[in-house]
Protein backbone atom coordinates (compact mmCIF):
# COMPACT_ATOMS: atom_id res chain seq x y z
CA UNK A 1 0.00 0.00 0.00
CA UNK A 2 1.36 3.41 -0.94
CA UNK A 3 1.77 5.59 2.15
CA UNK A 4 2.95 9.15 2.70
CA UNK A 5 5.94 9.28 5.03
CA UNK A 6 5.97 13.05 5.34
CA UNK A 7 4.55 15.93 3.40
CA UNK A 8 5.08 19.65 3.42
CA UNK A 9 3.37 22.38 1.45
CA UNK A 10 5.19 24.34 -1.23
CA UNK A 11 4.29 28.00 -1.66
CA UNK A 12 1.93 27.75 -4.65
CA UNK A 13 -0.65 25.00 -4.89
CA UNK A 14 1.63 21.98 -4.49
CA UNK A 15 2.33 19.44 -1.79
CA UNK A 16 5.76 17.85 -1.45
CA UNK A 17 5.25 14.23 -0.38
CA UNK A 18 7.80 11.53 0.40
CA UNK A 19 6.09 8.23 -0.37
CA UNK A 20 6.77 4.60 0.23
CA UNK A 21 5.11 1.41 -0.87
CA UNK A 22 4.64 -1.17 1.87
CA UNK A 23 4.41 -4.78 0.77
CA UNK A 24 3.45 -7.22 3.50
CA UNK A 25 2.12 -10.75 3.80
CA UNK A 26 -1.62 -11.18 4.02
CA UNK A 27 -1.41 -13.16 7.25
CA UNK A 28 1.02 -11.88 9.84
CA UNK A 29 2.24 -13.14 13.19
CA UNK A 30 3.44 -9.74 14.40
CA UNK A 31 7.05 -10.92 14.42
CA UNK A 32 7.77 -10.19 10.76
CA UNK A 33 11.07 -8.60 9.93
CA UNK A 34 11.08 -5.30 8.03
CA UNK A 35 13.46 -4.20 5.29
CA UNK A 36 13.61 -0.65 3.91
CA UNK A 37 14.87 -0.03 0.39
CA UNK A 38 15.61 3.68 0.00
CA UNK A 39 16.96 5.69 -2.90
CA UNK A 40 16.63 9.04 -4.67
CA UNK A 41 18.43 11.08 -2.01
CA UNK A 42 20.40 12.69 -4.80
CA UNK A 43 18.10 13.73 -7.60
CA UNK A 44 20.58 12.90 -10.36
CA UNK A 45 21.04 9.26 -9.26
CA UNK A 46 18.48 7.10 -11.00
CA UNK A 47 19.74 3.50 -10.90
CA UNK A 48 17.65 2.91 -7.77
CA UNK A 49 14.47 3.73 -9.66
CA UNK A 50 14.69 0.56 -11.71
CA UNK A 51 15.70 -1.44 -8.64
CA UNK A 52 12.58 -0.23 -6.79
CA UNK A 53 10.38 -1.06 -9.76
CA UNK A 54 11.84 -4.52 -10.18
CA UNK A 55 11.72 -5.43 -6.47
CA UNK A 56 8.10 -4.27 -6.42
CA UNK A 57 7.29 -6.25 -9.57
CA UNK A 58 8.93 -9.50 -8.49
CA UNK A 59 7.35 -9.48 -5.03
CA UNK A 60 3.89 -8.65 -6.31
CA UNK A 61 4.16 -11.46 -8.86
CA UNK A 62 4.64 -13.95 -6.00
CA UNK A 63 3.12 -12.50 -2.85
CA UNK A 64 2.79 -16.06 -1.52
CA UNK A 65 6.57 -16.04 -0.93
CA UNK A 66 6.59 -12.87 1.14
CA UNK A 67 7.31 -13.52 4.84
CA UNK A 68 8.28 -10.06 6.03
CA UNK A 69 7.53 -6.39 5.43
CA UNK A 70 9.21 -4.58 2.53
CA UNK A 71 9.09 -0.79 2.52
CA UNK A 72 10.20 0.76 -0.78
CA UNK A 73 11.07 4.48 -0.84
CA UNK A 74 11.94 5.41 -4.45
CA UNK A 75 12.53 9.12 -3.92
CA UNK A 76 13.67 10.67 -0.65
CA UNK A 77 14.25 13.85 -2.67
CA UNK A 78 11.36 13.89 -5.13
CA UNK A 79 11.83 17.56 -6.12
CA UNK A 80 15.45 16.78 -7.04
CA UNK A 81 14.60 13.69 -9.09
CA UNK A 82 11.83 15.53 -10.87
CA UNK A 83 13.92 18.59 -11.72
CA UNK A 84 17.23 16.80 -12.51
CA UNK A 85 18.84 18.45 -9.50
CA UNK A 86 21.30 16.57 -7.31
CA UNK A 87 20.40 18.43 -4.14
CA UNK A 88 17.10 19.68 -2.81
CA UNK A 89 16.12 22.68 -4.97
CA UNK A 90 16.65 26.00 -3.15
CA UNK A 91 18.54 24.33 -0.31
CA UNK A 92 22.32 24.64 0.09
CA UNK A 93 23.26 21.45 1.87
CA UNK A 94 23.55 17.97 0.38
CA UNK A 95 20.53 15.99 1.62
CA UNK A 96 22.86 13.17 2.66
CA UNK A 97 24.67 15.56 5.01
CA UNK A 98 21.68 16.64 7.11
CA UNK A 99 20.66 13.41 8.83
CA UNK A 100 19.28 12.74 11.43
CA UNK A 101 17.52 15.97 10.59
CA UNK A 102 15.97 18.48 12.92
CA UNK A 103 12.31 19.15 13.60
CA UNK A 104 13.21 22.74 14.49
CA UNK A 105 15.39 23.30 11.43
CA UNK A 106 14.73 24.07 7.78
CA UNK A 107 12.05 22.24 5.79
CA UNK A 108 14.71 19.84 4.46
CA UNK A 109 15.94 19.06 7.98
CA UNK A 110 12.36 18.51 9.13
CA UNK A 111 11.75 16.07 6.29
CA UNK A 112 15.01 14.26 7.04
CA UNK A 113 13.94 13.78 10.66
CA UNK A 114 10.58 12.32 9.61
CA UNK A 115 12.30 9.91 7.19
CA UNK A 116 14.58 8.71 9.98
CA UNK A 117 11.60 8.21 12.28
CA UNK A 118 9.84 6.18 9.62
CA UNK A 119 12.79 3.85 8.97
CA UNK A 120 13.61 3.53 12.66
CA UNK A 121 12.91 0.09 14.06
CA UNK A 122 13.46 -1.73 10.75
CA UNK A 123 15.64 -4.84 10.76
CA UNK A 124 17.58 -3.83 7.68
CA UNK A 125 17.96 -0.93 5.27
CA UNK A 126 19.53 -0.71 1.82
CA UNK A 127 20.42 2.81 0.67
CA UNK A 128 20.98 2.80 -3.12
CA UNK A 129 23.14 5.45 -4.77
CA UNK A 130 24.48 5.75 -8.29
CA UNK A 131 27.63 7.82 -8.08
CA UNK A 132 27.03 11.10 -9.93
CA UNK A 133 27.03 12.27 -13.55
CA UNK A 134 30.83 12.29 -13.61
CA UNK A 135 31.85 8.75 -12.60
CA UNK A 136 30.75 5.23 -13.43
CA UNK A 137 30.96 2.65 -10.64
CA UNK A 138 30.73 -1.15 -10.60
CA UNK A 139 28.07 -2.50 -8.22
CA UNK A 140 29.58 -2.16 -4.78
CA UNK A 141 28.71 -1.79 -1.12
CA UNK A 142 30.53 0.85 0.94
CA UNK A 143 30.90 0.23 4.65
CA UNK A 144 32.72 2.25 7.28
CA UNK A 145 35.35 0.47 9.34
CA UNK A 146 33.36 0.85 12.55
CA UNK A 147 30.39 -1.11 11.20
CA UNK A 148 32.32 -3.58 9.02
CA UNK A 149 32.17 -6.55 11.37
CA UNK A 150 28.38 -6.46 11.45
CA UNK A 151 27.67 -5.37 7.88
CA UNK A 152 30.18 -7.19 5.67
CA UNK A 153 28.53 -10.61 6.17
CA UNK A 154 25.16 -9.09 5.16
CA UNK A 155 26.66 -7.22 2.21
CA UNK A 156 28.00 -10.46 0.77
CA UNK A 157 24.45 -11.53 -0.05
CA UNK A 158 23.84 -8.45 -2.19
CA UNK A 159 25.48 -9.98 -5.28
CA UNK A 160 27.81 -7.02 -5.79
CA UNK A 161 31.30 -7.25 -7.22
CA UNK A 162 33.05 -5.28 -4.53
CA UNK A 163 32.74 -4.37 -0.84
CA UNK A 164 34.78 -1.30 0.07
CA UNK A 165 35.51 -0.93 3.78
CA UNK A 166 36.53 2.71 4.14
CA UNK A 167 37.81 4.78 7.05
CA UNK A 168 35.37 6.91 9.02
CA UNK A 169 35.18 10.67 8.39
CA UNK A 170 33.44 13.14 10.67
CA UNK A 171 31.51 14.68 7.79
CA UNK A 172 29.97 11.26 6.98
CA UNK A 173 28.35 11.15 10.41
CA UNK A 174 25.52 13.14 8.88
CA UNK A 175 24.59 10.53 6.27
CA UNK A 176 21.39 8.52 6.41
CA UNK A 177 23.40 5.29 6.62
CA UNK A 178 25.46 6.42 9.60
CA UNK A 179 22.36 7.71 11.36
CA UNK A 180 20.47 4.45 10.91
CA UNK A 181 23.46 2.28 11.80
CA UNK A 182 23.84 4.25 15.03
CA UNK A 183 20.16 3.49 15.72
CA UNK A 184 20.78 -0.23 15.29
CA UNK A 185 19.16 -0.42 11.87
CA UNK A 186 21.86 -2.21 9.82
CA UNK A 187 22.14 -0.07 6.70
CA UNK A 188 24.08 -0.99 3.59
CA UNK A 189 25.10 1.72 1.12
CA UNK A 190 25.13 0.52 -2.49
CA UNK A 191 26.92 2.53 -5.19
CA UNK A 192 26.62 1.50 -8.82
CA UNK A 193 26.35 2.81 -12.35
CA UNK A 194 26.38 6.48 -13.25
CA UNK A 195 24.17 9.50 -12.64
CA UNK A 196 21.21 10.33 -14.88
CA UNK A 197 21.20 6.84 -16.40
CA UNK A 198 19.85 3.37 -15.67
CA UNK A 199 22.24 0.46 -16.19
CA UNK A 200 19.76 -2.39 -16.37
CA UNK A 201 22.38 -5.14 -15.99
CA UNK A 202 23.67 -3.66 -12.71
CA UNK A 203 20.15 -3.08 -11.42
CA UNK A 204 19.09 -6.67 -12.05
CA UNK A 205 22.32 -7.91 -10.46
CA UNK A 206 21.50 -5.94 -7.31
CA UNK A 207 17.85 -6.99 -7.32
CA UNK A 208 18.97 -10.64 -7.36
CA UNK A 209 21.16 -9.81 -4.37
CA UNK A 210 18.35 -8.05 -2.49
CA UNK A 211 16.21 -11.19 -2.85
CA UNK A 212 19.11 -13.37 -1.65
CA UNK A 213 19.54 -11.15 1.39
CA UNK A 214 15.78 -11.10 2.05
CA UNK A 215 15.76 -14.88 1.95
CA UNK A 216 18.64 -15.03 4.42
CA UNK A 217 16.72 -12.61 6.67
CA UNK A 218 13.53 -14.71 6.35
CA UNK A 219 11.66 -11.95 4.58
CA UNK A 220 11.35 -13.86 1.29
CA UNK A 221 10.78 -17.56 0.80
CA UNK A 222 11.00 -17.84 -2.99
CA UNK A 223 13.79 -19.11 -5.20
CA UNK A 224 16.88 -16.89 -5.27
CA UNK A 225 20.17 -16.88 -7.11
CA UNK A 226 23.41 -17.78 -5.41
CA UNK A 227 25.17 -14.42 -4.86
CA UNK A 228 28.56 -13.92 -6.48
CA UNK A 229 31.62 -13.72 -4.22
CA UNK A 230 32.63 -10.06 -3.92
CA UNK A 231 36.11 -8.67 -3.50
CA UNK A 232 36.37 -7.18 -0.01
CA UNK A 233 38.91 -4.40 0.25
CA UNK A 234 40.07 -1.55 2.47
CA UNK A 235 41.23 1.97 1.59
CA UNK A 236 44.85 0.85 1.43
CA UNK A 237 44.22 -1.26 -1.64
CA UNK A 238 42.53 1.50 -3.64
CA UNK A 239 44.57 3.82 -5.89
CA UNK A 240 43.12 7.16 -7.01
CA UNK A 241 43.95 8.80 -10.33
CA UNK A 242 43.16 12.50 -10.64
CA UNK A 243 43.50 14.75 -13.68
CA UNK A 244 46.73 16.72 -13.71
CA UNK A 245 45.51 19.01 -16.51
CA UNK A 246 42.21 20.62 -17.51
CA UNK A 247 40.77 19.43 -20.81
CA UNK A 248 38.76 16.57 -22.29
CA UNK A 249 39.31 13.02 -21.04
CA UNK A 250 39.35 10.26 -23.64
CA UNK A 251 39.54 6.83 -21.98
CA UNK A 252 41.49 3.98 -23.48
CA UNK A 253 40.57 1.45 -20.83
CA UNK A 254 37.30 -0.37 -20.20
CA UNK A 255 35.41 -0.19 -16.94
CA UNK A 256 35.96 -3.12 -14.54
CA UNK A 257 38.84 -4.58 -16.54
CA UNK A 258 42.30 -5.67 -15.50
CA UNK A 259 45.15 -3.27 -16.02
CA UNK A 260 48.85 -3.69 -15.37
CA UNK A 261 51.07 -1.03 -13.93
CA UNK A 262 52.02 1.27 -16.83
CA UNK A 263 49.03 0.34 -19.02
CA UNK A 264 47.31 3.39 -20.53
CA UNK A 265 44.11 4.59 -18.82
CA UNK A 266 43.43 7.50 -21.19
CA UNK A 267 44.47 10.96 -22.32
CA UNK A 268 43.39 14.45 -21.42
CA UNK A 269 43.40 16.34 -24.68
CA UNK A 270 42.95 19.93 -25.81
CA UNK A 271 40.48 20.25 -28.70
CA UNK A 272 41.74 23.74 -29.61
CA UNK A 273 45.34 22.73 -30.28
CA UNK A 274 45.14 18.98 -30.86
CA UNK A 275 47.65 18.38 -28.06
CA UNK A 276 47.67 15.70 -25.38
CA UNK A 277 47.88 17.56 -22.06
CA UNK A 278 48.12 14.54 -19.76
CA UNK A 279 48.75 10.95 -20.72
CA UNK A 280 47.55 8.73 -17.88
CA UNK A 281 49.02 5.31 -17.12
CA UNK A 282 47.93 2.96 -14.39
CA UNK A 283 50.08 3.33 -11.27
CA UNK A 284 49.36 -0.27 -10.15
CA UNK A 285 48.21 -3.69 -11.30
CA UNK A 286 44.50 -4.08 -10.60
CA UNK A 287 40.95 -3.46 -11.77
CA UNK A 288 39.39 -0.16 -12.79
CA UNK A 289 36.27 -0.08 -10.62
CA UNK A 290 35.58 3.67 -11.00
CA UNK A 291 35.97 5.37 -14.38
CA UNK A 292 35.36 8.95 -15.49
CA UNK A 293 32.16 9.17 -17.52
CA UNK A 294 31.79 12.93 -18.08
CA UNK A 295 34.56 14.01 -20.46
CA UNK A 296 35.29 17.62 -19.48
CA UNK A 297 37.75 17.69 -16.60
CA UNK A 298 39.50 20.24 -14.46
CA UNK A 299 42.83 19.65 -12.83
CA UNK A 300 41.99 17.45 -9.86
CA UNK A 301 38.91 15.79 -11.35
CA UNK A 302 38.76 12.12 -10.44
CA UNK A 303 39.59 9.97 -13.48
CA UNK A 304 39.64 6.47 -12.06
CA UNK A 305 39.97 4.34 -8.95
CA UNK A 306 41.87 1.08 -9.22
CA UNK A 307 41.59 -1.83 -6.86
CA UNK A 308 45.15 -3.03 -6.58
CA UNK A 309 46.34 -6.62 -6.71
CA UNK A 310 43.09 -8.03 -8.13
CA UNK A 311 43.06 -10.44 -11.02
CA UNK A 312 40.00 -12.11 -12.47
Amino acid sequence: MVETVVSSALPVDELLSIKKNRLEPEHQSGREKRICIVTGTHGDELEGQYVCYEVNRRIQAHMENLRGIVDIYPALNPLGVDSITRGIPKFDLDMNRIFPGNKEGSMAEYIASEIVNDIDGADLCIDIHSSNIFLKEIPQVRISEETAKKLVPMAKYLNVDFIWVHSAATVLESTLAHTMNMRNVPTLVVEMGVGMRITRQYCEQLVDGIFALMREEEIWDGEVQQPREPVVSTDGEVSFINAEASGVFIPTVEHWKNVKKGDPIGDIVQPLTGKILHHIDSPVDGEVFTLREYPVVYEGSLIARILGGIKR
Partner: protein
Amino acid sequence: MTKEVLFRIEAPYRDELRVHGYRFGKGDKAACIVGAMRGNEVQQLYICSQIIHTLKELERRGCISSGKEILVVPSVNHFSMNIGKRFWPSDNTDINRMFPGYNEGETTQRIAAGVFENIKDYSYGIQFASFYMQGDFIPHVRMMDTGYQNPSLANLFGLPYVLIRKPKPYDTTTLNYNWQIWETSAFSVYTNATDRIDEKSADQAVASVMRFLCRMGLIKYYGHSGYIASVLEEDELMSVRANAAGIFRRLKGPNDTIRMGEVMAEIIDPYEGDVTMQIVAPTDGIVFFAHNEPLVLENTVVFKVIRRLHK
Protein backbone atom coordinates in the same frame (compact mmCIF):
# COMPACT_ATOMS: atom_id res chain seq x y z
CA MET B 1 50.81 46.70 -0.44
CA THR B 2 51.66 43.85 -2.71
CA LYS B 3 49.16 42.07 -4.90
CA GLU B 4 49.96 38.51 -5.77
CA VAL B 5 48.36 35.36 -7.11
CA LEU B 6 48.05 32.92 -4.22
CA PHE B 7 46.63 30.08 -6.24
CA ARG B 8 45.79 29.42 -9.86
CA ILE B 9 44.16 26.60 -11.75
CA GLU B 10 43.55 26.26 -15.46
CA ALA B 11 40.09 25.73 -16.92
CA PRO B 12 39.37 23.70 -20.00
CA TYR B 13 37.41 26.42 -21.80
CA ARG B 14 37.76 29.61 -19.73
CA ASP B 15 40.43 31.95 -18.45
CA GLU B 16 42.43 30.46 -15.58
CA LEU B 17 41.10 30.92 -12.05
CA ARG B 18 43.40 33.25 -10.12
CA VAL B 19 42.94 33.72 -6.38
CA HIS B 20 44.57 37.01 -5.45
CA GLY B 21 45.90 38.14 -2.11
CA TYR B 22 46.69 41.69 -1.00
CA ARG B 23 49.46 41.93 1.59
CA PHE B 24 49.86 44.94 3.86
CA GLY B 25 52.87 45.35 6.12
CA LYS B 26 55.68 42.85 6.62
CA GLY B 27 56.49 40.53 9.46
CA ASP B 28 54.47 38.19 11.65
CA LYS B 29 51.43 36.64 10.01
CA ALA B 30 48.99 38.66 12.05
CA ALA B 31 45.58 38.70 10.34
CA CYS B 32 43.99 37.19 7.28
CA ILE B 33 40.65 38.38 5.87
CA VAL B 34 38.72 36.28 3.34
CA GLY B 35 35.77 37.46 1.29
CA ALA B 36 33.58 35.73 -1.29
CA MET B 37 33.90 31.96 -1.20
CA ARG B 38 30.61 31.46 -3.06
CA GLY B 39 29.45 32.96 -6.30
CA ASN B 40 26.57 34.99 -4.90
CA GLU B 41 28.53 36.58 -2.04
CA VAL B 42 28.64 40.00 -3.68
CA GLN B 43 28.31 41.86 -0.37
CA GLN B 44 31.26 39.89 1.01
CA LEU B 45 33.34 40.83 -2.05
CA TYR B 46 32.31 44.45 -1.71
CA ILE B 47 33.24 44.59 1.98
CA CYS B 48 36.68 43.17 1.22
CA SER B 49 37.18 45.69 -1.57
CA GLN B 50 36.40 48.48 0.91
CA ILE B 51 38.79 46.99 3.47
CA ILE B 52 41.56 46.89 0.86
CA HIS B 53 40.71 50.46 -0.12
CA THR B 54 40.94 51.56 3.52
CA LEU B 55 44.14 49.62 4.27
CA LYS B 56 45.82 51.12 1.18
CA GLU B 57 45.11 54.58 2.55
CA LEU B 58 46.29 53.62 6.05
CA GLU B 59 49.49 52.17 4.60
CA ARG B 60 50.10 55.37 2.63
CA ARG B 61 49.84 57.25 5.91
CA GLY B 62 52.19 54.83 7.69
CA CYS B 63 49.44 53.43 9.92
CA ILE B 64 50.19 49.71 9.47
CA SER B 65 52.15 48.51 12.50
CA SER B 66 55.70 47.43 11.79
CA GLY B 67 56.50 43.74 12.03
CA LYS B 68 52.87 42.76 11.28
CA GLU B 69 51.38 41.45 8.09
CA ILE B 70 47.72 41.56 7.04
CA LEU B 71 46.55 39.47 4.09
CA VAL B 72 43.21 40.12 2.36
CA VAL B 73 41.74 37.60 -0.11
CA PRO B 74 38.70 39.33 -1.60
CA SER B 75 37.40 36.42 -3.68
CA VAL B 76 38.01 32.71 -4.07
CA ASN B 77 35.14 31.63 -6.29
CA HIS B 78 34.61 34.40 -8.85
CA PHE B 79 34.40 31.65 -11.50
CA SER B 80 30.90 31.04 -10.16
CA MET B 81 30.16 34.72 -9.55
CA ASN B 82 30.91 35.54 -13.18
CA ILE B 83 28.27 33.11 -14.42
CA GLY B 84 25.63 33.62 -11.72
CA LYS B 85 26.11 30.40 -9.76
CA ARG B 86 26.63 29.97 -6.01
CA PHE B 87 28.82 26.86 -6.11
CA TRP B 88 31.67 25.58 -8.28
CA PRO B 89 30.60 25.76 -11.95
CA SER B 90 31.26 22.20 -13.07
CA ASP B 91 30.32 19.94 -10.16
CA ASN B 92 28.34 22.33 -7.92
CA THR B 93 30.53 21.63 -4.89
CA ASP B 94 30.98 24.26 -2.17
CA ILE B 95 34.61 25.33 -1.67
CA ASN B 96 33.71 26.38 1.89
CA ARG B 97 32.94 22.71 2.64
CA MET B 98 36.27 21.42 1.35
CA PHE B 99 38.70 22.64 4.01
CA PRO B 100 41.46 21.97 4.87
CA GLY B 101 41.51 20.69 1.29
CA TYR B 102 43.65 18.05 -0.35
CA ASN B 103 46.21 18.99 -2.97
CA GLU B 104 45.98 15.62 -4.71
CA GLY B 105 42.18 15.43 -4.56
CA GLU B 106 39.24 16.77 -6.56
CA THR B 107 39.32 20.28 -8.07
CA THR B 108 37.60 22.14 -5.24
CA GLN B 109 39.64 20.18 -2.68
CA ARG B 110 42.74 21.42 -4.49
CA ILE B 111 41.47 25.01 -4.53
CA ALA B 112 40.73 24.79 -0.80
CA ALA B 113 44.16 23.26 -0.12
CA GLY B 114 45.95 25.83 -2.27
CA VAL B 115 44.16 28.72 -0.58
CA PHE B 116 44.45 27.26 2.92
CA GLU B 117 48.20 26.80 2.53
CA ASN B 118 48.43 30.58 2.06
CA ILE B 119 45.95 31.69 4.71
CA LYS B 120 46.74 29.37 7.61
CA ASP B 121 49.28 30.20 10.30
CA TYR B 122 47.84 33.69 10.85
CA SER B 123 47.02 34.67 14.42
CA TYR B 124 43.57 35.93 13.45
CA GLY B 125 41.30 34.82 10.62
CA ILE B 126 38.22 36.79 9.57
CA GLN B 127 35.80 35.44 7.00
CA PHE B 128 32.79 37.19 5.50
CA ALA B 129 30.37 34.33 5.18
CA SER B 130 26.80 33.59 4.22
CA PHE B 131 24.31 31.21 5.79
CA TYR B 132 22.75 28.07 4.31
CA MET B 133 19.25 29.38 5.05
CA GLN B 134 17.99 32.38 3.05
CA GLY B 135 17.46 35.38 5.29
CA ASP B 136 18.74 38.51 6.99
CA PHE B 137 20.72 38.62 10.22
CA ILE B 138 21.54 41.24 12.77
CA PRO B 139 25.21 41.92 12.00
CA HIS B 140 27.22 39.65 14.25
CA VAL B 141 30.43 37.71 14.73
CA ARG B 142 30.05 33.95 14.64
CA MET B 143 32.44 31.42 16.10
CA MET B 144 32.48 27.64 16.13
CA ASP B 145 32.57 25.94 19.50
CA THR B 146 35.66 23.86 18.85
CA GLY B 147 37.15 24.29 22.29
CA TYR B 148 39.64 26.78 20.81
CA GLN B 149 37.23 29.68 20.38
CA ASN B 150 37.71 32.92 22.28
CA PRO B 151 34.50 34.98 22.59
CA SER B 152 36.25 37.82 24.38
CA LEU B 153 38.35 38.41 21.28
CA ALA B 154 35.21 38.36 19.15
CA ASN B 155 33.88 41.16 21.34
CA LEU B 156 36.64 43.42 20.07
CA PHE B 157 34.88 43.78 16.72
CA GLY B 158 32.36 45.94 18.55
CA LEU B 159 29.37 44.41 16.76
CA PRO B 160 26.20 44.03 18.84
CA TYR B 161 26.29 40.24 19.07
CA VAL B 162 28.70 37.31 19.18
CA LEU B 163 27.15 33.95 18.36
CA ILE B 164 28.69 30.62 19.33
CA ARG B 165 27.65 27.65 17.22
CA LYS B 166 28.15 24.03 18.20
CA PRO B 167 29.55 22.49 15.02
CA LYS B 168 27.56 19.82 13.21
CA PRO B 169 29.41 17.18 11.20
CA TYR B 170 28.99 19.17 7.99
CA ASP B 171 30.62 22.21 9.64
CA THR B 172 33.92 20.39 10.13
CA THR B 173 34.96 21.09 6.55
CA THR B 174 34.41 24.87 6.67
CA LEU B 175 37.21 27.41 6.70
CA ASN B 176 36.20 28.78 10.11
CA TYR B 177 36.37 25.36 11.77
CA ASN B 178 39.70 24.44 10.19
CA TRP B 179 41.29 27.79 10.95
CA GLN B 180 40.57 27.13 14.61
CA ILE B 181 41.90 23.58 14.45
CA TRP B 182 45.12 25.05 12.96
CA GLU B 183 45.27 27.45 15.94
CA THR B 184 44.09 30.60 14.18
CA SER B 185 41.51 32.56 16.17
CA ALA B 186 38.72 32.45 13.60
CA PHE B 187 35.71 34.73 13.23
CA SER B 188 32.93 34.76 10.67
CA VAL B 189 31.35 38.18 10.24
CA TYR B 190 27.75 38.23 9.03
CA THR B 191 26.07 41.32 7.65
CA ASN B 192 22.48 41.58 6.52
CA ALA B 193 23.04 40.98 2.81
CA THR B 194 24.64 38.45 0.46
CA ASP B 195 23.67 38.74 -3.20
CA ARG B 196 23.04 42.48 -3.09
CA ILE B 197 25.10 45.34 -1.70
CA ASP B 198 23.89 46.95 1.50
CA GLU B 199 26.14 49.97 1.95
CA LYS B 200 25.11 50.61 5.54
CA SER B 201 25.89 47.15 6.84
CA ALA B 202 29.01 46.96 4.65
CA ASP B 203 30.28 50.16 6.30
CA GLN B 204 29.52 48.63 9.69
CA ALA B 205 31.47 45.49 8.73
CA VAL B 206 34.48 47.47 7.50
CA ALA B 207 34.46 49.56 10.68
CA SER B 208 34.26 46.44 12.84
CA VAL B 209 37.28 44.90 11.14
CA MET B 210 39.28 48.13 11.45
CA ARG B 211 38.31 48.30 15.13
CA PHE B 212 39.48 44.73 15.66
CA LEU B 213 42.77 45.24 13.80
CA CYS B 214 43.40 48.41 15.77
CA ARG B 215 42.64 46.77 19.10
CA MET B 216 45.00 43.91 18.25
CA GLY B 217 47.73 46.47 17.57
CA LEU B 218 47.98 45.83 13.85
CA ILE B 219 46.94 49.28 12.60
CA LYS B 220 46.56 52.79 13.90
CA TYR B 221 42.97 53.79 13.38
CA TYR B 222 40.74 56.17 15.25
CA GLY B 223 37.21 54.89 15.11
CA HIS B 224 34.10 54.58 17.21
CA SER B 225 34.34 52.10 20.07
CA GLY B 226 31.34 50.10 18.91
CA TYR B 227 29.26 47.84 21.11
CA ILE B 228 30.06 45.59 24.03
CA ALA B 229 28.57 42.49 22.46
CA SER B 230 25.96 40.19 23.93
CA VAL B 231 27.34 36.65 23.59
CA LEU B 232 24.72 34.12 22.48
CA GLU B 233 24.72 30.37 22.10
CA GLU B 234 22.99 29.45 18.85
CA ASP B 235 20.98 26.75 20.62
CA GLU B 236 19.47 29.43 22.87
CA LEU B 237 17.83 31.21 19.94
CA MET B 238 14.15 30.40 19.61
CA SER B 239 13.09 29.19 16.17
CA VAL B 240 9.76 30.40 14.81
CA ARG B 241 8.38 28.27 12.01
CA ALA B 242 5.91 28.74 9.22
CA ASN B 243 3.21 26.11 9.55
CA ALA B 244 1.75 26.97 6.18
CA ALA B 245 3.13 27.77 2.74
CA GLY B 246 2.39 30.72 0.51
CA ILE B 247 3.35 34.34 0.02
CA PHE B 248 5.38 35.66 2.96
CA ARG B 249 4.57 39.14 4.23
CA ARG B 250 7.21 40.05 6.80
CA LEU B 251 6.17 42.50 9.47
CA LYS B 252 9.26 42.24 11.68
CA GLY B 253 12.89 42.28 10.63
CA PRO B 254 16.31 41.84 12.21
CA ASN B 255 16.87 43.88 15.37
CA ASP B 256 13.14 44.57 15.84
CA THR B 257 11.78 44.20 19.35
CA ILE B 258 8.84 41.84 19.65
CA ARG B 259 6.26 41.19 22.32
CA MET B 260 4.79 37.78 23.00
CA GLY B 261 1.65 37.39 20.89
CA GLU B 262 2.59 40.12 18.44
CA VAL B 263 2.15 39.30 14.75
CA MET B 264 5.59 38.90 13.14
CA ALA B 265 4.51 37.87 9.65
CA GLU B 266 1.54 36.83 7.59
CA ILE B 267 1.22 34.03 5.09
CA ILE B 268 -1.05 34.86 2.20
CA ASP B 269 -2.92 32.51 -0.09
CA PRO B 270 -1.08 32.89 -3.42
CA TYR B 271 -4.30 32.73 -5.47
CA GLU B 272 -6.96 34.43 -3.36
CA GLY B 273 -4.97 36.92 -1.29
CA ASP B 274 -6.46 35.92 2.06
CA VAL B 275 -4.22 35.79 5.11
CA THR B 276 -4.10 32.05 5.80
CA MET B 277 -1.86 32.24 8.82
CA GLN B 278 -0.42 34.80 11.18
CA ILE B 279 2.98 34.03 12.64
CA VAL B 280 2.86 35.16 16.21
CA ALA B 281 5.79 35.91 18.51
CA PRO B 282 6.16 33.05 21.00
CA THR B 283 8.16 35.18 23.41
CA ASP B 284 9.34 38.70 24.16
CA GLY B 285 12.69 39.41 22.60
CA ILE B 286 14.64 40.68 19.61
CA VAL B 287 14.58 39.29 16.08
CA PHE B 288 18.02 37.88 15.23
CA PHE B 289 17.27 36.24 11.87
CA ALA B 290 14.40 36.74 9.46
CA HIS B 291 13.43 34.91 6.27
CA ASN B 292 13.69 37.35 3.36
CA GLU B 293 12.07 35.68 0.37
CA PRO B 294 8.61 36.49 -0.98
CA LEU B 295 7.54 32.83 -0.86
CA VAL B 296 7.73 30.45 2.05
CA LEU B 297 7.60 26.67 2.38
CA GLU B 298 5.67 24.93 5.11
CA ASN B 299 7.86 23.79 8.02
CA THR B 300 10.47 26.46 7.39
CA VAL B 301 12.18 28.45 10.13
CA VAL B 302 11.31 32.06 9.30
CA PHE B 303 12.63 33.80 12.41
CA LYS B 304 15.18 33.19 15.11
CA VAL B 305 14.57 35.21 18.21
CA ILE B 306 16.78 36.21 21.12
CA ARG B 307 14.51 35.48 24.04
CA ARG B 308 13.76 37.97 26.77
CA LEU B 309 16.42 40.44 25.67
CA HIS B 310 15.72 44.17 25.51
CA LYS B 311 17.61 46.77 23.57
